[in-house]
């Protein structure tokens, strides 16, 4: 245990995803020794992201405005909707350049162990969009792991009653992983080879 502020910083870093106790300690001491200017910029960046960044009122992607760039872009195809778990998945799909439609970010996947059910995800809002908009196809691009598959099954069953074309990304993605870890080529292929669920 270190004294006061140093230990507090280590504890804070330790709570972040992917950072173990050793890394937390290393980062904390790096900050301690680093240039004051640089570290102020880091602190400002953290503050700014919490103050400015919100979630798009339409698709729940991150944005600094009421709606995100993609929802506002008139060149995007408004008849196709890609459903993903997180904003970082939007970035992953954008990198492939094989998708020109719009997105819907669920905010996670169905995961009873973590206490996440359909009500904790932006599924109601998705239904709302499907009723109002001109959407003709929904591509479900949840992660290729158990929880992502379960979420896909859930959505496919629910949406099958609405009469919209529903497809799931083709297999070939590394199973058990995150969408964001798939390389562009693989993910792009998964889009082109998507299979119709209903």
């Amino acid at each position, binding site marked *: 245990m270190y004294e006061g502020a140093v230990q507090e910083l280590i504890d804070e870093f330790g709570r972040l995803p992917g950072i173990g106790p050793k890394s937390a300690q290393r980062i904390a001491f790096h900050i301690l020794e680093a240039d004051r200017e640089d570290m102020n910029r880091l602190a400002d960046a953290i503050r700014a992201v919490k103050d400015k960044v919100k979630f798009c009122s339409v698709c729940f992607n991150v944005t600094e405005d009421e709606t995100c760039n993609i929802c506002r872009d008139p060149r995007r195809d408004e008849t196709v909707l890609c459903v993903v778990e997180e904003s970082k998945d939007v970035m992953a799909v954008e990198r492939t350049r094989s998708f020109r439609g719009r997105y819907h970010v669920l905010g996670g996947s169905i995961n009873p162990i973590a206490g996440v059910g359909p009500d904790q995800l932006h599924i109601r809002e998705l239904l709302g969009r499907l009723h109002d908009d001109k959407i003709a196809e929904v591509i479900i691009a949840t992660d290729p792991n158990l929880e992502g598959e379960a979420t896909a*099954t859930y959505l496919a069953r629910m949406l099958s009653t609405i009469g919209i074309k529903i497809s799931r990304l083709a297999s070939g993605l590394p199973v058990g992983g995150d969408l964001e870890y798939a390389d562009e080529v693989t993910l792009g292929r998964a889009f082109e080879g998507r299979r119709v669920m209903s």
Partner: protein
Amino acid sequence: MYISHVSLTDFRSYRQVDLELVPGTTVFAGPNGVGKTNIAEALGYLASLSSHRVSNDAPLIYFGADQALVRARVHRGDQAVGLELEITAGKANRARINRANTVRARDILGILRTVLFAPEDLALVKGDPSERRRYLDDVLVALQPHHAATRSDYDRVLKQRNALLKSARASGRLSSSHESTLSVWDEHLVTAGSKLLRGRLEVLGALEGHIADAYDGLTDGSKPATARYMSTVGGAMDDEQDQGQPGNGTSGTPRSPLMDLDEGELHAAFLRSLALQRRKELDRGLTLVGPHRDELVLGLGTAPAKGYASHGETWSLALSLRLAVYRALCEDDSRPGSKPILILDDVFAELDVSRRRKLAAVVADAEQVIVTAAVVEDVPDELNGRILTVGPGTVSA
């Protein structure tokens, strides 16, 4: 097959040990607690990615070290493969094949095949049903390594489904969102579960005859050994609505009716059984139907083995279960040089002279046999093994 070289780094009691091995029998001898079983365990782990002694990886790593490394050169016919497995507690293990890039540990399953006999095997006969389920599942993975994924998928779906049932029970009622999510998990549970079930039934089909034969060979043959799969799927509980346990079926009863169903039929039967147990599952907040609640009922003559077999009978049956695995693996891959390596951890000390002889005779069939013994005289002379002496942290000829 055989192993020509083993190297352990920070595995159990070894900081570093390098062993040259040859085909035939090798006996690791030394006093109690010196590290003989640790070697047997390392080889078994490299083949199956699980230990016969512990269910988590932490105890396998030298006390205070971050990771253990097990390396071996495996020969099958005139082919040789270098295997390297890195065991890190609480993290995914990683492996390398022929010094190439690291792969998932799971990818090395099937390259090295071993059958390990140990005093712990008594639990196969006397222990909880989970011991016998694990026995079948381990053989399934040895025969068809891709089923390692089936097994872990099933476990994960089961955990999620149980969490959902618990939260439904805690909230006191089945909301429509609970209900629709539950049916999704049903689907995933049944998909993985019927695969696993089909696999287990096939495995039992391949083992049944060998278990009976091996038991015959080790005893005077007066009581036939039987093994029958009792499932919570499509079982008696559908009619009786009992407490969700497979019945303690008297042996001599014919084989499980599930044996003849294909995966699709098992899928349907599983869904049906789930539907019938839904109320009870919600009451208990637990998944009551599925391969995780099934039982492999072992019998000797007309009596069940568990609770009835004598100590000697229990030993013979446990050995027979392992010998049957050896036979099934030989049958599965009959190419020259493909017989699994036999590892006998401390078993001779537990057997009488006649069983020792019989076991030695059967075991002589393998290309390589690894034996551990505290007392060398316990190992039958017929095995004619090379003796290596194990000292604390070292092995010498």
